[in-house]
């Protein structure tokens, strides 16, 4: 075996770069470790305890919380609700956003204004958005039912009918996230060379074919990023449900998400141990889904 040729000397410049590199990353790393990584381990630790109020009265109960979790039908229903929400929000918000991005990528008058309008929902506070939609959806006094009545249709119980409340909440989710997805797709679209489109036009492809054969494959890296992040975020839905569906609503059992249940147990009933157990379940599910998505990456994402 030949010894390494001319082992690269670590110059003082390299050392300086190394140091500065870590220095710049330090704030983010500190934040990540203190606010994200350590709490994850604390949460898992807490799930083995029965907790009291004020962070006191910790009693080790081993796997009892987990036994309770597996027997708890409310948790499994909440998991189903959360999955339903994700299945509605993610595909629709992405589909609508990509179409909008393609349309807003062309040169036209007022393009920036349209882009701004579609992005505005992201700028509004989620609680404010939920309050407005709550009144829009109100079965007695809301604007939507008012309009339905005006054209002679019966009123719909948007947020108190167990069968459709989760869909109503998901619609609000879609509305508020389209702008964000659209901006990401617009960025991805800038990277596609115009030559492909010109060549396709010469060959006689129409806009729809161009979209499916050129745009979609070339934007798949961005699409992959958006799908993963949106799935993770939608599985954590809480504020829209908390603000739009009242605790006494008949729709609550079929609408509450896992994070909603976590809030209920950890903060309203002061049982942080059981709340942590629910979060561990959510963590496990998100990890499994993300692993599957990463594996499936090879099948549909085209990196140049």
């Amino acid at each position, binding site marked *: 075996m030949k010894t390494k040729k001319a082992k690269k000397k670590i110059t003082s410049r390299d050392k300086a770069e190394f140091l500065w590199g870590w220095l710049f990353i330090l704030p983010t790393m500190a934040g990540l470790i203190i606010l994200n990584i350590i709490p994850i381990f604390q949460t898992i630790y807490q799930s083995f305890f029965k907790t009291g109020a004020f962070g006191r009265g910790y009693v080790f109960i081993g796997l009892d919380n987990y036994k309770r979790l597996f027997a708890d039908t409310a948790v499994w229903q909440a998991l189903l609700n959360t999955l339903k929400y994700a299945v509605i929000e993610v595909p629709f918000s992405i589909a609508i956003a990509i179409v909008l991005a393609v349309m807003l990528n062309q040169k036209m008058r007022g393009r920036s204004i349209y882009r701004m309008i579609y992005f505005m929902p992201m700028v509004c506070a989620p609680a404010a958005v939920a309050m407005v939609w709550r009144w829009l959806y109100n079965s*007695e006094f809301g604007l939507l039912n008012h309009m339905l009545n005006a054209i002679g249709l019966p009123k719909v119980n948007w947020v108190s009918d167990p069968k459709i409340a989760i869909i109503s909440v998901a619609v609000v989710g879609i509305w508020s996230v389209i702008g964000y997805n659209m901006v990401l797709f617009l960025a991805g679209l800038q990277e596609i060379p115009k030559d492909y489109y010109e060549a396709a036009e010469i060959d006689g492809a129409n806009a729809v074919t161009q979209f499916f054969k050129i745009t979609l494959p070339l934007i798949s890296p961005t699409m992959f990023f958006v799908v993963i992040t949106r799935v993770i975020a939608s599985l954590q839905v809480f504020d829209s449900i908390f603000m739009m569906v009242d605790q006494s609503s008949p729709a609550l059992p079929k609408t509450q998400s896992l994070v909603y249940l976590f809030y209920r147990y950890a903060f309203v*009933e002061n049982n942080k141990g059981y709340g942590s157990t629910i979060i561990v379940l959510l963590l496990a599910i998100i990890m499994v889904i993300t692993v599957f998505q990463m594996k499936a990456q090879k099948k549909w994402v085209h990196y140049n």
Partner: protein
Amino acid sequence: MNWKKVSAVMLVAVMTASLAACGGSGSDSKDSSDKQESQDTGKALTVAIWDSNQEPGLRQIMDDFTDETGIEVDIQVTPWKDYWTMLEAAATGGSMPDVFWMHSDQIGTYAEYDDILLNLSDKIKESDKIDLSKYPENLVKIYQNADGDQLAVPKDLDTCAVWYNKKMFDEAGIDYPTADWTWDDFREVAKKLTKDDGSQYGVAIKPGSYQESWYSTIYAYGGEVLTADKKKSGFDEPKTIEAMEVIENIIKDGSMPDYNVVSENETTALMEAGTVAMTFQGSWAIPELAENDYVKENCDIAPLPKGPEGTKSIYNGLGWAASANSENTEGAWKLIEYLGSKEAQQKQAELGVTMSAYEGTSDAWANSHPEFNMQVYLDMREDAQAYPSSKNTQVWFQMMKDKMVDGFSGAKPMKDVCEDIAVEMNKFLAEE
């Protein structure tokens, strides 16, 4: 090109200016609190409450306190839904507000440890302004811990009554409710006031508004929510079930709007919109209802209907408590002493804030809104029932609220709901 430069510079200027303004006002308040530091009483006390309706009146009383003692007071309102989450997080983190409202549901949790709430017993003994015998005995007892230490000074008293729409009664040709009307009368009247086209209903009751409504029904029929020793649930007692079936019958008559409407709206909103003829409201709802034009014109207050045992309005009262870890426990005590004194309690009633706990001060409250018959709330004290609470009330009443939804929506018969609640409640009570 120049436009871009100009707008960029302007944007930067606006951003720095707003930053400076924030920083500036921050240092301003620091200056004024520094001024307070120079006086011997320290910086502003933080006071936490949950009812924004009471804030204006309390603000005036606090200003009087500041005039007398020089201590500044800063009132912070957190809506009821989030108040206890906020307080518990603050207690866990050791940074509670100096003075805050305490409720009989939660006193059990806060009294469990010695170092959360300030022990006021010795201070009360030394004080000449606070005399515990002048407050209702029940309220004084609720705010004591297991050792008999006083952890909060009673602030007010609330009772419940029926609000009815005079215009709807006139239209239907029904006499206004009298003090003798019974739950059967109530049921009849509610039915008569319900129109077939759904534009008007006789009554609306939310399962979560138990304090104002169905708790009283339970006691009026001789049932109970908790046994007197607080060890068992009263929900499986036959008289309790009978009372809940009275409510069930009213719902079956069709006198309440669809449960969806009831769950999505507050009863005050339904009353203000003219959709419902009668609702149950606690005395704390007066500031909101009294502001509403429709209600001012058309509504008035009537006593609760009677059951075989009487009216049994649920009465409760909040307490003023202080944090044991406050930096200014002396100042906090001074404030609580002031708020519990006869003068402040009188003022609280006169301003129409709430009925005060101090004996003899509430008559002034009844005159604060002459267009309504507020005397009814005072009369309800004659035959009242103390709010049922146990050491860990909040654990079982969430469960009770959730299960009761099925009884009100018609998903399950009241008898089954009550028995379910009793089983779960007994489990929780056994753990206390």
